[in-house]
């Protein structure tokens, strides 16, 4: 089973794919989180009725398969708007919005988890809204939302396997290219799976540890 035609060049090729996976994930998670916090706070501040259009918009990203989101964004930008954007750009854009939709939910949940009485106490101590947000809500909400956020970031990394449809050669696609040439599906798939696992598993464990710690005290 371990007699393989896999060469050093092929390993570098796989590593490049893994690099793309990480870069796409990192960009999308950073932008998606910033947007997600913005959207989440907006939704809480505006209330359910005023924020309905935003809620509906974000809901689409959680209710339509990512594969379809990518295909649609790609064909809309290129065919209808006739913009010349790279597949990499489209992939990051869609994944960022996708991340922000889930992140907004986490932020909203986190803010809701801060007891209203605590916030009123802060305001009655003379804190402004911004101070209340900065010193009371942010630390408490972060504690609630952080473990789920780590889960979300890892989810985005795994979902980034789908950006192959917009011609971005990430890890899984690189693996498929090598399978085409070397015809060793099981061996190559195991390498690919191991890579995802090695990145995802420790972080997931760390998230679990944070969750445990915050629920104990």
């Amino acid at each position: 089973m371990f007699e393989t035609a896999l060469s050093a060049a092929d390993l570098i090729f796989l590593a490049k794919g893994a690099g793309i996976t990480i870069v796409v994930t990192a960009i999308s998670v950073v932008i998606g989180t910033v947007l997600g916090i913005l959207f989440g706070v907006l939704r809480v501040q505006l209330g359910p009725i005023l924020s309905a259009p935003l809620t509906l918009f974000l809901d689409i990203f959680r209710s339509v398969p990512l594969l379809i989101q990518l295909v649609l964004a790609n064909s809309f930008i290129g065919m209808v708007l006739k913009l010349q954007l790279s597949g990499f750009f489209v992939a990051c854009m869609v994944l960022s919005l996708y991340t922000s939709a889930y992140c907004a939910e986490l932020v909203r949940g986190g803010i809701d988890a801060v007891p209203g009485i605590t916030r009123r106490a802060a305001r009655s101590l003379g804190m402004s809204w911004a101070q209340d947000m900065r010193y009371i809500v942010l630390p408490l909400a972060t504690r609630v939302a952080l473990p789920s956020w780590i889960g979300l970031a890892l989810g985005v990394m795994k979902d980034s396997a789908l950006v192959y449809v917009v011609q971005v050669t990430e890890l899984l696609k690189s693996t498929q290219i090598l399978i085409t040439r070397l015809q060793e599906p099981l061996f190559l798939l195991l390498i690919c799976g191991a890579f995802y696992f090695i990145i995802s598993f420790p972080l997931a464990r760390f998230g679990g540890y944070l969750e445990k710690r915050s629920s104990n005290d």
Partner: protein
Amino acid sequence: MKMLTLTAAFVAATGIAGVAHADKLDDIIASGTLRCAVVLDFPPMGMRDENNVPIGFDVDYCNDLAKALGVTAEIVETPFPERIPALMSGRVDVGVASTSDTLERAKTVGFSIPYFAFEMAVTANEKSGITSFDSMKGHTVGAVAGTFEAIALEKQVNEWGEGEFRPYQTQADVFLALSQGQLEATVSTSTVAMANVKTGNFPGISVVGKAPFDTDYVALFANRADYGLLNYLNLFVNQQIRTGRYAELYEKWVGGDLPTLTVPNAYR
């Protein structure tokens, strides 16, 4: 009054001149790069060498086209189902991707004259006992999603009313499934079938015969409205044949009898 008409005519004339865009052909020459959609798991038309660099008939063809235009070629790998979306989304300028010029597709993209022609062959897993096209009846067969042969084969399976048709995303997946025994037979272009069987990567499969489908003429494609580019592509294909480059590339990648690209008793 006469003055007014003249002015109007002048405005109209400049207006029209102003609207006329630079042709796609000009854009390509100006940008210095020709981006070709090529399918890279379709040996010998498109594949990768041991350094994972694209090679094959279609890759050479794209390079020739770029040379003729005086620009550098950029090969954009596109799986079969993504070829047209890649063009429509402006990710590539032209498709050199062994694309059958069907009338249904021509409603959306513009095709050049054919630059290659495929015969369809049946490749079977030796354990299946399939020996010809007709003996595929009742078996599990497959082809690459979105190709000429997949559309024809699916129709045939439905006509037979038994057996199963499975489309896979790539040619490699089809042959992988075939050698694993998940598929019992496939219909593919004979050049691709020969090339895959010859690699020895897929034990236990062999080409068992021809499929009675029409010859599959494949053409270069570009946006439907880019007449300047399409005209250029037509002339380019013609020149490739005239100069013997077509025969040369055919010998290099495929070998054997050179398929004719003209249809008897037709104008084009």
